[in-house]
């Protein structure tokens, strides 16, 4: 697990999955359906598209709301999750997934101002 956390993990949405095959990514989305085995679930992004998340261990509890998944994108475009965190919405303001999606598109439009890599320092 330490390995994937120490590399850049670009924030992406579903439309960017195909460009990140076999790479580490960070995917934020809304939990849609959890498979009965608890080992896989679907998430939707701010554009309403769905992705599949696959886990190493089955979920131990009910999962719902907004999750931030870190993992590798498989050849089939699924996210092989290493870890995930629930973004809490219990403190009042619901998470605006559509706005987050706009921000994701923006940081990919301006990689010079939001780099997902560490260049050698001068």
């Amino acid at each position, binding site marked *: 697990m330490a390995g994937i*956390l*120490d590399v850049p993990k670009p924030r992406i949405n579903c439309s960017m999955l195909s460009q990140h095959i076999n790479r580490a990514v960070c995917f934020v989305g809304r939990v849609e359906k959890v498979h009965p085995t608890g080992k896989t679930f679907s998430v939707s992004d701010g554009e309403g598209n769905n992705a599949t998340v696959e886990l190493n261990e089955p979920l131990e509890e009910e999962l719902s709301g907004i999750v931030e998944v870190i993992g590798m994108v498989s050849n089939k475009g699924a996210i092989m999750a290493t870890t995930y965190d629930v973004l809490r919405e219990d403190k009042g303001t619901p998470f605006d997934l559509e706005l987050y999606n706009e*921000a994701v598109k923006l940081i990919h439009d301006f990689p010079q101002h939001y780099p997902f890599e560490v260049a050698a320092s001068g």
Partner: protein
Amino acid sequence: MPNKWLVISAVSCVFACSGGYSETVMAGGYTQSPGGFASPSLSQGGEKKGRTRASQIVPCTVSQLMSASQADEAFRVGEVEVSQVTIVGIIRSTDKSMTNIQYKVDDMTGAPMDVKQWVDTEDPSVDNTVLPPGTYVKVSGNLRSFQNHRSVVAFSVRPLEDMNEITSHMLEVVQAHMVLSKPQTTVRILKHARRFLLVLCLIRSCPEPQGISIQDLKQRLSGISLAVIKQAVEFLSNEGHIFSTIDEDHYKSTDNDD
């Protein structure tokens, strides 16, 4: 691209009005230099291979902090000077000693960043509770480099209550770095404008009936490259200020009678 810029600004304003916003914008936005883009002081800075001083806290990514170049005590992300910064990320690990708390904060742009927060042993009112891993936080502090090791010495490590601050920080980072590096682009445009004017003046002041040649212009304007002179001639011709005479290399001004 201008439309995206409006989107960022508009969204940032919405966040500011809704109250769930950062200290950086509350402080009045980002300033480049007094007087704005067109001020002489700015073009002066441009001649000196200008840098943009950040007089306020600059929102950054961990990757930017790790890649920042360093000259003496000053750090630069591209053209943007940074010292006080904010980052937003999730705590991956913690370590507490008598005098400080150390966090590793991950904002997805690279390996987690070392954040050090001094513990105030004197003041009982200051909360020295260590925030647990998995907590999303906003860190405000100073970028430091010690023995080639970069860290942020934080004066504030605040857990996020509204996760939309993750989004707003992403927007703020792009906005801040765009705004703070803009003057260089504007300086470049101003430099070009001056050179174009020089070319026009030379063409206008030429009394010869066939006008002045590009080669003559290059000779008279030794500090300006041929490429820029040709750009100037093309622009001025398209705008109708000059026209070619005996061939494509000779030009006269259309305003000679002024």
